[in-house]
């Protein structure tokens, strides 16, 4: 017989406050105070964050995209095709898994994983790519471009392009091309052209600059599939909506399995698409705490990629959000062992959720993530990607502080096949 859940022993939510600076120059854009799920506003703002900071050439296209997305969102046929592909092509719903041995080892809260690493292509990225390519075809676009860091989004984009027969160009930083060789080969097998970007440090930020340059020169026929919940409006909303399948499924599965909601959700954050996908359907459940985990790299006092912990608000890649930058607003390079978290910004909705206090954010170092990576391999027989290894490292710290009848749900957003070479290198093993 199912016992009623005990009252959660976590601190109460902060009292609702309006985002700071929201009234400046008459720009009131607060959501209704009884829901955290009504943003962005009609101008694409989450409080002071988000927006559409793009070159004029792209602006008409962004407005078209928004109009077409509104229509698609209201079209049952679009939703049905999306759902059908997620079920039969991606393999959803992904399982919700209770992890007994890591729970026992950490000796505190029950640890559950949303198994999005079991998706086709091995990560959550495919959810969003399916949605965006359907939209691209609906808009009559005939060429797809995308940026990628770890290569997971590049592989997912190349996959849907192969599935629908559209030409695909992936921009990838030259540094990432070198450290993610298996994914580069996968993209090429899938028929994509991979363009190494040598500007800057040759990582995700530089790949995104180059994708934007390509897009502005090819607006008439090209659709840009952005891989994370960032960029100009409507991308943060659109990517969140497509990724929210993670949280919607998890909510139903958790209720079916335990009769209650989890106490804490945990997810890794680079741009933040897997996290917002898990969090968003739970935002209006006051008993559910949420923890986003940024990459602290070598440490927050050294090189890292924790935009919320170590950055401040600024404008880059079409949106206003927390950025790693110097006092002149020059963007500084992020660092993380995980190529997928190595980005100096974060999705604007996370910046807003941090400022209003609905979601807590923390960070873990490369070393902590490597330890967590090995812990999950050893205890559960699951090799995680280095990105969710950051979430697991946070779970490692959190679980022992909680009671055994409490529940942590972490998003296992990608599998680690792509990372075994770089992990081996960090562990001093030559393959």
């Amino acid at each position, binding site marked *: 017989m199912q016992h009623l859940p005990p009252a959660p022993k976590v601190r109460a939510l902060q009292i609702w406050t309006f985002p700071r600076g929201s009234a400046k120059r008459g720009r009131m854009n607060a959501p209704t105070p009884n829901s955290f799920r009504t943003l962005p506003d009609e101008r694409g703002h989450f409080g002071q964050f988000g927006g559409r900071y793009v070159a*004029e050439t792209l602006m008409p296209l962004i407005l078209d995209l928004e109009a077409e997305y509104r229509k698609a969102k209201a079209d049952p046929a679009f939703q049905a095709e999306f759902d059908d592909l997620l079920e039969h092509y991606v393999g959803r719903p992904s399982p919700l898994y209770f992890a007994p041995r890591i729970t026992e080892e950490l000796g505190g809260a029950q640890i559950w994983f949303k198994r999005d690493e079991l998706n086709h292509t091995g990560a959550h990225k495919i959810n969003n790519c399916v949605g965006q390519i359907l939209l691209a075809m609906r808009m009559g676009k005939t060429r797809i471009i995308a940026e990628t860091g770890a290569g997971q989004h590049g592989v997912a984009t190349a996959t849907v392009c192969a599935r629908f027969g559209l030409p695909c160009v992936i921009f990838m930083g030259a540094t990432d091309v070198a450290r993610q060789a298996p994914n580069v080969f996968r993209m090429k097998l899938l028929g994509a052209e991979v363009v190494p970007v040598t500007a*800057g440090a040759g990582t995700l930020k530089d790949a995104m600059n180059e994708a934007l340059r390509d897009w502005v020169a090819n607006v008439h026929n090209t659709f840009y599939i952005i891989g994370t919940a960032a960029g100009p409006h409507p991308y943060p909303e659109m990517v969140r909506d497509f990724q929210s399948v993670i949280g919607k499924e998890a909510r139903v599965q958790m209720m079916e399995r335990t009769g209650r909601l989890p106490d804490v959700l945990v997810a890794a954050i680079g741009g933040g698409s897997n996290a917002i996908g898990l969090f968003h359907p739970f935002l209006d459940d006051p008993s559910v705490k949420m923890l986003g985990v940024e990459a602290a790299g070598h440490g927050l006092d050294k090189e890292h990629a924790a935009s919320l912990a170590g950055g401040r608000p600024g404008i880059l890649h079409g949106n206003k959000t927390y950025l790693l930058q110097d006092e002149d607003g020059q963007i500084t390079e992020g660092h993380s062992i995980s190529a997928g978290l190595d980005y100096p910004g974060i999705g604007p909705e996370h910046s807003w959720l941090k400022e209003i206090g609905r979601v807590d954010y923390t960070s873990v170092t490369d070393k902590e993530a490597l330890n967590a990576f090995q812990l999950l391999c050893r205890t559960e027989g699951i090799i995680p990607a280095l990105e969710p290894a950051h979430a697991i490292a946070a779970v490692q710290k959190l679980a022992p502080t909680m009671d055994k009848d409490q529940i942590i749900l972490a998003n296992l957003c990608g599998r680690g096949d792509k990372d075994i070479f770089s992990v081996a290198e960090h562990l001093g093993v030559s393959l």
Partner: protein
Amino acid sequence: MSRLAQAFAKGRPALVTFVTGGDPTPDATASILDALVEGGADVIELGMPFTDPMADGPAIQLANLRSLGAGTTTAAIFRIAAEFRARHPEVPLVLMGYANPMTIRGADWFATECVKAGVDGVICVDIPPEEDPELGPALRDAGVSLIRLATPTTDHARLPAVLDGSSGFLYYVSVAGITGMQQAAQASIDEAVARIKASATIPVAVGFGVRTPDQAAAIARVADGVVVGSALVDLVAKHGTDAAGPVKELTAALAAAVHSARKGAF
């Protein structure tokens, strides 16, 4: 009459020239700006370097990196501007760059610094009319022109929004693309300029992909001004701190072509 208005009221088309501030070094920029003026440029655009110049092609991307690599700060850009203003009291100076360096200390701070340095106008690549509150009101309150960009994708319905709140001149980007790459077909420029001038009460200058005196002259037959950037930046890349001579030479050739483009044509 403002300096910008005067530059477009000389009874001939204006030459607008762009170089990146602090390229190759902050100290070398003054001689390059002087070369532009001596060569006959009517308006000077001074690029503010940014780590992520996503609307720029390879030439100006590299100029941004050279400038930042030489230690150029926002304070150095305003110092270059203020010293230029002292040497050239009549020549309009416009800052061009990206939103983050312009807004990071607050739009009011930036507008005040522009006034103090004698900057006449600002072109911000990544603040479209939809995000005008980020910078536009502060500049207008301070009496600094906000110069907006119109592009081949700016259709008839959008043009009024682009013009609303713009002053100084309208910068028509002749190609959908990044700086310094291909040139647009002259016929498409003629058509677009005629369409925009039917709605605009401010001068229209055309840029992106304009490299030679002949190209500049062809555009000057229809537009109020011609913008040349990457071709000049290429000379700075090639000649470094000795770029003033070659920059003056190219500017003079461009100025001669632009200023005389309509002679005998009417």
